[in-house]
């Protein structure tokens, strides 16, 4: 029996009961314990409401989502557009500009050819840029989606739409939805863990892993790369583990006395949460300690235990791109360790992909190769490592930004091509993501863009489709998976039925 399942279940039910007009007496508590015990084998974790949406056909057990905050250029990485060459440095045809809003482009910009060489790789012959040599070697594991599109063209709303289903704040993150729906499989760790690299958190901030209207126990717990991995995890100086254990024993006994006297079951829940906190104090640093990994695994990812990025405290964003910062690689390795321990949803954010060309620190010609190098080996290592441990089949790995970048160069700063200042604006109409593992058809490419990569040619994949597909792979019916709040049955895929599971990419 898994205690944490029960705890989560209890939490959720208590929340639902409280918010639907009931409280919780000891008898009700006992009955919940009993019922959850009875259903444990067939339906682990999760709430009744979420349970109803289970399809029983889960392909993936956990998710590692690698989000490149700022949005990398698909035209330099995955979407090979030789035709763009002939328009290079010429004015953008008017048809692509009419009625469009851009973040920074004004007037008529010039087209910009892909800046790096592409070649076909693997058995599937995927077109991949020279910036990703390591990924190219394992590309047969992935399904590349070239036609992802969104309707948001600014970072924060686009990130929110993708991860919470609404471009506004206040809705639960995908990871919260999923842990609410499926529960967790580790009694000593949170079910939804967030890791950030690149020196800054993404534009939309912590709202990206908030639990919105779902109970707060489902909010993402950000494990940090320096200091305590979880806030206030370490005991203060002077409190040894022995002392901590002794204090918690005393606390438990005193709370038990209080329970005997007052009879409020919430007191017992609190006793349980203090015990979980105590276990987390050991379990979290353990799982977060990558120095326990053998040398060849560290090398596989390019991970460096104990690395503390100088960029973490830098104000000037340009500092962030200097050198081969291994923070993202460390996070990829952590993601594997967490998934291995039964964590349901691991969300990585890597900041620094917003390459407008407004400075050498934010450019396609200078910064993108550095950022690509920071993730290339790490991502390839993650896929390889998951496969060799037999985890890839049950782990869905997702990579991508919140939108793409324009086939035009950005012209508000400079009109002419200049080293260190080559950049592209935000492009919501078509961009590339890839998925691998848990139920995804490997070695495929899905969808075509037009000859310059501006619009979608065939098989579009909207944000809603992406969300529906992810839930489907986890064995959740995206349409029935809803939470009643403020008069609506709220869903990750939004109120309409626009989102469709992308059948063509399923294994």
């Amino acid at each position, binding site marked *: 029996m898994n205690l944490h399942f029960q705890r989560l279940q209890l*939490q959720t039910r208590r*929340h639902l*009961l409280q918010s639907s*007009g*009931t*409280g*919780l*007496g*000891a*008898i009700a508590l006992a009955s919940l314990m009993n019922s959850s015990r009875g259903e444990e084998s067939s339906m682990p974790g999760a709430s009744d409401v979420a349970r109803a949406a289970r399809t029983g056909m889960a392909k993936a057990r956990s998710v590692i989502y690698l989000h490149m905050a700022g949005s990398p250029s698909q035209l330099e990485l995955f979407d090979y557009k030789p035709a763009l060459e002939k328009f290079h440095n010429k004015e953008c045809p008017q048809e692509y500009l009419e009625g469009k*809003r851009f*973040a*920074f482009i004004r007037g008529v910009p010039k087209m910009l050819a892909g800046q790096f060489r592409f070649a076909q790789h693997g058995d599937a012959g995927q077109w991949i840029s020279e910036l990703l040599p390591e990924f190219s070697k394992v590309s047969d594991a992935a399904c590349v989606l070239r036609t992802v599109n969104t309707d948001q063209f*600014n*970072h*924060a709303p686009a990130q929110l739409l993708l991860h919470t289903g609404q471009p506004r*704040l*206040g809705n639960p993150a995908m990871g919260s939805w999923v842990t609410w729906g499926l529960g967790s499989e580790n009694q000593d760790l949170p079910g939804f863990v967030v890791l950030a690299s690149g020196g*800054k*958190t993404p*534009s939309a*901030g912590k*709202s990206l892993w908030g639990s919105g209207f779902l109970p*707060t*126990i489902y909010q993402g717990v950000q494990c940090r790369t320096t200091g*305590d991995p*979880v*806030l*206030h995890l370490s*005991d*203060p*100086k*002077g*409190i*040894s583990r022995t002392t901590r254990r*002794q*204090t918690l*024993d*005393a*606390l438990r006994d*005193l709370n038990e*006395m*209080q329970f005997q*006297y*007052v*009879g*409020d079951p*919430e*007191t017992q829940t*609190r*006793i349980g*949460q203090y015990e*979980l*906190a105590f276990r*987390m*104090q050991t379990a979290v640093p353990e799982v977060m300690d990558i120095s326990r990994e053998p040398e060849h695994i560290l090398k596989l990812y390019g991970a460096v235990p104990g690395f503390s990025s100088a960029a*973490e405290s830098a104000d000037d964003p340009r500092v962030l791109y200097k050198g081969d910062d291994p923070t993202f690689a460390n996070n990829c390795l952590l993601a594997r360790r967490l998934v291995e321990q039964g964590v349901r949803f691991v969300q990585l954010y890597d900041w620094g992909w917003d390459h407008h060309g407004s400075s050498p620190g934010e450019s396609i010609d200078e910064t993108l190769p550095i950022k690509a190098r920071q993730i290339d080996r790490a991502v390839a290592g993650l896929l390889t490592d998951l496969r060799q441990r037999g985890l890839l089949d049950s782990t869905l790995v997702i990579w991508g930004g919140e939108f793409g970048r324009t086939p035009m160069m950005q012209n*508000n700063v400079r009109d002419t091509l200049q080293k260190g200042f080559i950049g592209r604006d935000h492009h919501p109409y078509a961009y590339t993501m890839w998925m691998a593992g848990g139920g995804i058809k490997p070695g495929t490419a899905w969808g075509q863009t037009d000859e310059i990569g501006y619009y979608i040619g065939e098989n579009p994949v909207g944000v809603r489709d992406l969300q529906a597909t992810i839930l489907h792979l986890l064995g959740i019916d995206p349409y029935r998976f809803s939470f009643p709040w*403020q*008069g609506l049955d709220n869903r990750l895929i939004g109120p309409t039925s626009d989102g469709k599971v992308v059948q063509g990419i399923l294994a």
Partner: protein
Amino acid sequence: MSLMQCDFRPLAIAGVIFLLTDLSECQGAEPVFFTKDVRPLLARHCLACHGADEDARQADLRLDLPPAPDANSETAAAIVPRHPDRSELINRITSADPDRRMPPPDSGHSMTPEEIVVVRQWIAEGAHYETHWAFEPPQRPDLPAVSDETWCRNPIDFFVRQQLDAHTLTPSPPAEPAVLLRRLVLDLTGLPPSETQAAEFLKDHSDESYERLVDELLASPGFGEHWARMWLDLARYADTKGYEKDQPRTMWRYRDWVIDAFNQDMPFDQMTREQIAGDLLPDATVNQQLATAYHRNTMTNDEGGTDNEEFRMAAVKDRVDTTVQVWMGLTMGCAKCHSHKYDPISQREYYRFLAYFDQTEDEDRPDDAPKLSTPTTEQSRRLAELNTQIAEVRQRYQVSTPEYATAKQAWISEQARQPAWRPTTPVAATSENGSVLTIRKDGSVLASGERPATDVYSITIDPQSAVKDSPLTAIRLEAMTHPSLPRGGPGRTKNDPNFVLSELTVEEVDHDGNPIRQLPLANSRADFSQNNWEVQKAIDGDPSTGWAISPQQGQPHTAIFQLQKAVAIPPGLRLRLKLSQQYPANSLLLGCVRISVSDRTFESLSADPLGLSEIAAVPESERSDEQNKQLDDAFRRIFPQTATIWNELAELEERVKTLNAEIPQTPVMKDRPPEKARTTYVHVRGNFLEHGDRVQPQLPEAFGQVSEELPANRLAVAEWLLSKDNPLTARVMVNRLWARFFGRGLVETEEDFGQQGSLPTHPALLDWLAIEFRTTDQWSIKRFLKRLVLSSAYRQSSVVTDSSRQLDPENRWLSRSPRFRLSAEVIRDQALAASGLLSRRIGGPSVMPPQPDGIWKATYSSLKWETAENEDRWRRGLYTFLRRTSPYPSMITFDAGSGEVCQIRRIRTNTPLQALVTLNDPVYIEAAGGLARSAASVESMFRRLLVRAPRDEELQRLQQLQQQVAAEFQASPQSAADLLTEARVTEPELADRQALAVRIVLASVLLNLDETVTRP
């Protein structure tokens, strides 16, 4: 029907199942009611397609209202009263045919057999519709008969006792005095009882003493702070603007307004009026306008490329949704995109209502305009003092002796005869980066053609033509308007005809333009300079700074520059002025400039577009008052008797300026003038770019009319919210106040009194309270709260007995006092107060107590967390700086909000992360340190927090721990020393530091007790 008839009998589930098996028995069952029993089922399964939303309605069938008399036969056939078997609705919901079955199988909905029985019974009983209870105005109910009147201290108790009787429950005995005291003080002030309060009340806990204490607490400043926090959740208060950049914003004066309002017991109707429309009240005071910052707590998006109109509309919609949520307990947000599925609000009605709010000036600008100067009381006092001094000095300054008049007259004549400024006609004007510069007849230089990002204009003049041989002292640069320039200029960029004069240099050149020497510039003045772009920056040698004039685009501006040394230019030689304009974006270039020169002393020169000598030349009879004043001011500055006083005055005025700069500028609501009124449209599918029909301000039909005597503005909305015909405002507010004392509202869904919300457990009590609040209490919150806490219901014990657990497991009927976890702020404040660390300073800018490193790492912002080292470290929780994208972590962990949107109630959670906060957050270690130092024994620490004395078994357990920890520290003295440092106990002279360290560990245990973090 009235609420009293709408009695909420428990629907016996067993009975329903029985009905399932034998429908003929339904006559004997409890009748079902549309509102209570049927409507929720329809709302869940049917109304999305057969409800109020015209666009979504299928088959023209509406089930939430009785069919119109002229309904077609098909609609009429859906529900045939008293004949369920002839009703198409029943046929459909029970059909086995998937094509006929309702709800359609692919909708994800299906009705359970129990639900079908309810619908069937309702039709069998006649299919009576009732209005939703909350949309009927409250009626004052009579006091019900109860089993034991002696228990009832006030009318509240009659209503509570009645429901207890109805559910065969009895109230719990009164709480022990120590528990009651702690409960009362925490509930009213968010702080633990002081030792004095505890000592007094434990000695005398009579009713009189209790009531005295209630009065004392209501009058204490902590009351306003505690209740302000409740209201700030509703106001979505924060210290930053939100969205990606999330820059800081000065809003704390509004927070202090709320504290004052609660402390002064401002009646709720006045609070409502001032916050929604204080600016529209006759002769609105600064405080009344400050109140409207309530609706300026909406977010502002400073990200590049965003459409200001999009985010202005987002803010206006937020105001509409928040107003309706906070005052009427209804969710209106969904009607932005489509008509409300459940409540009677169509999309058109939404935008009509929005039209009331659509007229304010704010428009998502980075500067958050319009703002109001909102001095604190102290600042107002100092300002008044300075102004008195200035008036006094000015009186001395304004001498009007005959000598003065004569001297002034002579000076004016001299000025008029000798114009101070002589225009020059340039001999050459060239551009470095391709602007076309044309010299015009009036001596000005006009730019046209190419518009480079940056430029340097070189203008060569012949000063001889202007001043002959007298030495040159100053140069004037007029940035002029011209019809060929966008908005008249003086800049060249369409969206922003500002300019930035980065650097002005002057050199002497020979006839062929070969440079001879630089002529350095010393002083400068301008008629106007943009904030942070003062004219002096045009001669500071730094090309990244300069002189600019926003927001005064569209008007001419003048700057004058003093030559460091007066210089005579020999005939044949010339001056070349270089106007360097290096602002990197938007081509902020001068469109039209003219250069003049002067030989007067710089002090006597004016930077006015119209120079003093020009004014002096105007015949006295034609001079305006303003012109006369300018002449007078200028002369007083050089007239010997007044010149010294002028310096004194200048210094005082400088102090006023400094003070004014310190006065917080708070964003407020302000309507646009009528001629600039906005037109409001329906937004198709909620998209601000897709305009539907034009709409006029109007209330949703279901909610009646605003008074016709009032103009159609926000004030009318406020008055309508407060009118006695409004069925919701008073109910929603009393329910909210009730919930803070009884753990949850009489209507549990505080945020939703609509058809999807929960029904009141004590409908008569809710109505009685609403009417009392509005009439007897005259909207006084203090009077209202006093009544709540004086009731016997409030004073019950919270011990969960076996019988109350079985019969009232969720405490719906109040058979005991609720226990619930304290709020984030109260847990913090309690710990700090009990430990003696809490600062009792009220109000002021938000503060930054310790938070873990690296929390603030949001993108694109330079905002820094600077941990307070003074008393600001230990201020009450509501003063903690709240950054929307990165709120204070320990507060969030305890379910506080981020202030991004209105938070009607906080859902209480119980998580391991909370344990880590109260065990390890430095705030709590420091509190443990304070507690251990100020209380001599474990027992007295215990009493500080919990008022009651520890029971023997508790004391023994604590003593056992004390021995364990003492042994540990004995073995490792360094640990004890480390812990003292962590707890900031640094005094070396303290005796027995090890014992103190042990007490700190015990104090930390006490701070983590379930009882400590729970309202008893």
